[in-house]
């Protein structure tokens, strides 16, 4: 670059300024404000005492609340199952699609539909599918004589969470499939072929060549989708509204209800703050220890 170094930095900052300004004003400042709110009463049912300082009281209340702690359990189970399921299914399909295949992009496109469809459509569709009296799932099971009584997919506490997990796997496996397929296609064919010539079987080639080559991609995809699964709203709320009871009340729904149904913004902010800190720590640990350092072959 011919221009002076300092003028380039200013130019650069000028280019970035609108983005920084927008993110700062609309996201960062309110987030900091939220964190401050977690130490204030901020109960909208008592408007006179809104900014009254309560210190760690909200945090203490939460840690002593069964409903709050249950929401963590529900979320962890939901996230592990839905991410794990979507990952495994996505990887399996990616492996199939990685083979020489005619019309591969048609298959890939068709399989992407669940992920591309607007989430509200997907959620309300599964709500309708899971309907115990008239949903296609129970109707089909009855039609083929597999059940006598309707199964309470989302009307009963025991199955509701599992039902949302299935819907989540349906929605998200295509994302895993696309990312992992792209990763599979970067594994050098010559390495695989050389190993085959040396007598390595399919599983061995997979374990010792393919997987290590894809390690960073796998770790990144798993971490990202795990974080996103905590933020899932539509595919749970749209199907069950958080019920029945508290069976599908994940952390996200808990915070939402606390803030917008019970108007306890301070407490909601505290719950959100705990969530942010825990996930940040998890992410830091995973990035630090999970990602292999770049080895340029």
């Amino acid at each position, binding site marked *: 670059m011919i221009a002076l170094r300092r003028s380039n930095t200013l130019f650069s900052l000028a280019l970035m300024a609108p983005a920084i300004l927008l993110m700062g004003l609309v996201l960062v400042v309110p987030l900091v404000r939220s964190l401050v709110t977690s130490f204030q009463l901020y109960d909208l049912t008592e408007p006179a005492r809104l900014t009254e300082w309560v210190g760690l009281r909200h945090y203490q209340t939460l840690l002593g609340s069964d409903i709050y702690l249950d929401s963590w359990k529900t979320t962890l189970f939901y996230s592990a199952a839905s991410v794990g399921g979507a990952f495994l299914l996505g990887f399996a399909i990616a492996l199939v699609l990685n083979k020489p295949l005619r019309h591969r992009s048609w298959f890939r496109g068709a399989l992407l539909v669940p992920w591309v469809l607007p989430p509200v459509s997907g959620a309300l*569709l599964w709500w309708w599918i899971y309907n115990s009296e008239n949903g296609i799932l129970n109707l089909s099971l009855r039609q083929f004589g597999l059940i006598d009584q309707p199964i309470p997919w989302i009307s009963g506490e025991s199955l509701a969470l599992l039902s949302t997990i299935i819907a989540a796997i349906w929605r998200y496996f295509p994302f895993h499939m696309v990312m992992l397929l792209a990763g599979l296609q970067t594994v050098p064919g010559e390495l695989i072929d050389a190993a085959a010539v040396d007598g390595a079987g399919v599983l061995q080639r997979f374990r010792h060549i393919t997987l290590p080559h894809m390690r960073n991609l796998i770790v990144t995809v798993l971490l990202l989708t795990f974080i996103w699964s905590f933020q899932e709203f539509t595919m749970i709320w749209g199907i069950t509204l958080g019920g029945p009871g508290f069976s599908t009340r994940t952390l996200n729904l808990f*915070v939402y209800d606390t803030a917008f149904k019970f108007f306890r913004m301070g407490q909601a902010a505290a719950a959100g703050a705990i969530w942010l800190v825990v996930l940040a720590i998890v992410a830091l640990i995973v990035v630090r220890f999970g990602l292999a350092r770049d080895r340029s072959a």
Partner: protein
Amino acid sequence: MSMIRSRGSRPSAGRLALFGLLALALLFALAPVAWMVSTSFKNAGAMFAIPPQWIPTEPTLEPYAALFAADHPFLTWFRNTAVVAVAAALVSVTLAIFAAYGFSRYPFRRSGALLLAFVGTQMFPPVLSLISIYVLFSDVGLLNTLQGLVFVYVTISLPFSIWMLKNYFDTIPRELEEAAFLDGCGRLATLFRVVLPLMSPAIVSVAIFSFLVAWNELLFALTFITRDANRLVAPGLVIRYAGQYQSSQNELMAASVLIGLPVIVLFIALQRYVIAGLTMGSVKG
């Protein structure tokens, strides 16, 4: 890809199993969608028919017509959502182009950390930001406005957009810009005349991504807009149709088809760009 395994003309058992898996996956992915489309063409009676009609025996456009009826807010919702999504895409692309160009061509000492900070905002629990943005918007009069939602959606799509565009800028050789400088072209002019024309796949990807973030979002749209006239389609559908037992699931499915169509069409036309955008920069080579 391995060329060594011999391929006879008869498919092996292993190969059949693989295709069986593919078929099952296709069934899993598409059967619900087929049911959605099928329901959207049924009248009330056919919806509850036993045995269930995967292909309606008497297909009807009633559910669709109901959505376009004068007293149905669907068109209002649709228009509001389209306005917000297009605006969010335009703003996001513009801001992202400038910022990404800076990150790519004019890095400074802390710019790597700054980029990471941008991307790191993806980890903020949206509901946590929601609480204070709600109060902020309420104070400045942005609650219940479409503009307010546009701002929010841009903050959601911007970091990934910047990331994607920066990676794409990085792949464009600098010789082109240097030649332009030698010709006396200014820095901004170079960006617009020399570099941007080469960026169309990435820009399209980013625009679609930002559009979809806005088109698909529910939480903020539900919380920030409570006035019927400004309501978006996702909260509209949930509030009107979900949770309560009604016999209008066919209307609901029709609405779902209608809001899914623009997305599917965009996607089919531009699948290659979208996937390239998704996987670029995250996969080496």
